[in-house]
């Protein structure tokens, strides 16, 4: 268990979802989702719209009743507990601050509803919370007088004031512009570390999920596609959808050419054979598969500088685009097109039509199942 978990165990709840299911009419919104969330963790539900992440959040909150399955908070089932009794805090994309109450009154609202704290004690808690979100001086203002970022911080203070063991966040930064969003991401993480509550964070922005979370749950078409730490998801995706959804990717159809012991080689589109990481997927010689190579893992040279143990393939640059700190190149390899990302100095001399040599470490060539139930086999492009 990591250090955050140990410290946070006292203030964060453990959350379990068991075969949670919800349908709206004919469409399945959430399909047998099971999840174990350790106490105090910051967990993101990441996925495209329609993947079921917001529905899952609303089920945890209690605004929707599941068709089947259970929700356990600290090992006790809360599926039959009405939302106002679940002792959860929640932050919404539209802030949802009560317009006719001051900031202090907004923050104090859960205390009025849930506890019997004296005025003084409540006052103290409210001040504590406002200090935590760094808005101590704005207690008497009204929400309409605050900026978007400030309103969201008030919303967080309100959600945390009664020390809930679970905090739900529904795309809270969606309404903010890029710079503010990045600042708020740091803020939210800082608050999480201070308070130690368990956080479930819904987002469609993979950068947000990767930078903020202890664990990411990638959702796709009402199901869980993969669960893991950001690094595991990015570097060892379990299926096509996750590989494509997170970061840029090159997905090449290939046939397994050779399997022996630790070694694995695949034959890609242009007939060349390259080595791949063994991975966990069963690999039978001759079977079709998909390999993933991240653009930033590919090195580009103008001349063939191959060293032993490395695969090198030759290609032609079809397009270059400048991205300030990097160049992104489209390199044609027979029928395949590979995206390559190189640092600025590297790409500076390159031009369209130039013949180049691509090389990489065989450990970054990952095998993916050719098709499985959580990947959109029909719709996905394999580039």
């Amino acid at each position: 268990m990591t250090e955050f978990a140990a410290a946070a165990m006292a203030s964060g709840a453990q959350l379990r979802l068991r075969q949670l299911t919800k349908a709206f009419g004919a469409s399945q919104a959430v399909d047998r989702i099971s999840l174990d969330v350790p106490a105090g963790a910051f967990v993101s539900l990441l996925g495209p719209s329609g993947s079921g992440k917001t529905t899952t959040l609303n089920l945890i909150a209690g605004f929707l009743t599941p068709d089947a399955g259970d929700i356990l908070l600290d090992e006790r089932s809360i599926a039959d507990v009405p939302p106002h009794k679940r002792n959860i805090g929640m932050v919404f994309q539209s802030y949802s601050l009560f317009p006719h109450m001051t900031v202090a009154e907004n923050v104090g609202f859960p205390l009025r509803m849930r506890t019997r704290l004296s005025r003084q004690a409540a006052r103290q808690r409210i001040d504590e919370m406002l200090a935590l979100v760094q808005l101590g001086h704005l207690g008497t203002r009204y929400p309409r007088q605050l900026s978007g970022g400030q309103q969201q911080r008030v919303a967080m203070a309100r959600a945390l004031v009664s020390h809930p063991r679970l905090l739900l966040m529904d795309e809270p930064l969606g309404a903010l512009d890029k710079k503010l969003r990045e600042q708020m991401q740091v803020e939210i993480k800082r608050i999480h570390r201070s308070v130690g509550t368990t956080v479930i964070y819904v987002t469609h922005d993979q950068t947000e999920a990767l930078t903020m979370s202890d664990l990411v749950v990638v959702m796709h078409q009402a199901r869980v596609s993969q669960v893991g730490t950001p690094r595991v998801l990015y570097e060892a995706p379990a299926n096509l959808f996750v590989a494509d959804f997170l970061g840029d990717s090159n997905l090449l159809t290939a046939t397994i050419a050779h399997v022996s012991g630790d070694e694995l080689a695949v034959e890609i589109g242009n007939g060349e054979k390259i080595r791949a990481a063994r991975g966990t997927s069963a690999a039978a010689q001759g079977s079709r598969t998909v390999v993933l190579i991240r653009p930033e893992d590919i090195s580009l040279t103008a001349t063939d500088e191959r060293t032993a143990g490395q695969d090198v393939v030759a290609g032609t640059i079809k397009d270059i685009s400048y991205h300030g700190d990097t160049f992104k190149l489209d390199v044609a390899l027979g029928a395949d097109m590979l995206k390559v990302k190189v640092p600025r100095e590297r790409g500076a001399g390159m031009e369209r039509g130039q013949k180049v040599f691509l090389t990489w470490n065989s450990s970054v060539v990952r095998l993916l199942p050719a098709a499985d139930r959580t990947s959109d086999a029909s719709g996905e492009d394999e580039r």
Partner: protein
Amino acid sequence: MSATAGRLGLSAAVLAVLIYLIFPVIVVVAISFSSGNFLVFPPPGFSLRWYESIAGDPEWVNALWVTLKVGSLSALIAVLLGVPAAFALVRHVIPAKALLSALILCALVTPPIVTALSTYLFFVPLGLVNTVVGLACAHAVSGMPFVVINTSASLRSADINLERAAVIHGAHPLWAVLRITLPIISPGIVIGAIFAFVHSAHELLVATFVLGGVGKPVAVKIWSGVQATSDPTIAAASAILIGLAIFTFASAAATQSLAKRRTA
């Protein structure tokens, strides 16, 4: 055809139609202040005598009083029944929702004579003829669509997350509806109630059948007046109805903008 010519043409057409719409209203109001004895426009002079004669005539005063009672009661019933119905239609998943909302709106497209005749036949054995309550109950049916439509519109544009924010942080769901959502949608409810009231005040045929005798409302009295008399009393009575409607609407609008200023 050039754009400006088209725009000019459109403006001219619009102006003409608006005059066509407004003018008769102006006529009525003007005549109500007429110093002459006949229904002529433009009136010969200014006078308040017709308003005075209404104020002094116990039958007219009673009629206005009846209209007020029936209108308020039917609007109240429409609100008490229509607001929950609007919540059900907007917030919940219901089988055959389209059919149910069509049922609620039915009353507005049914010919008034059919409603009047059927209501009368129904009320006679129930003993509801010649009662204010009876007429109010009947008018409530046609007031309900106005309340449901306007409340639904308000509900749809209100942010449901405000209510959810209250509930998740400890408020009982009913408390959240009453103290958070209801104030937000009150403009819609009030507008619906006003429309229901005005509709009741103007309604003629059901009123004629159900309450056309001694305790008749203003609309019925105006109708019999129009066919019998030819003096501007009728105009004055109508102007009073107009004034009442405008007053209610204006005060509602004022309270709403006050509320908006507080919460914007």
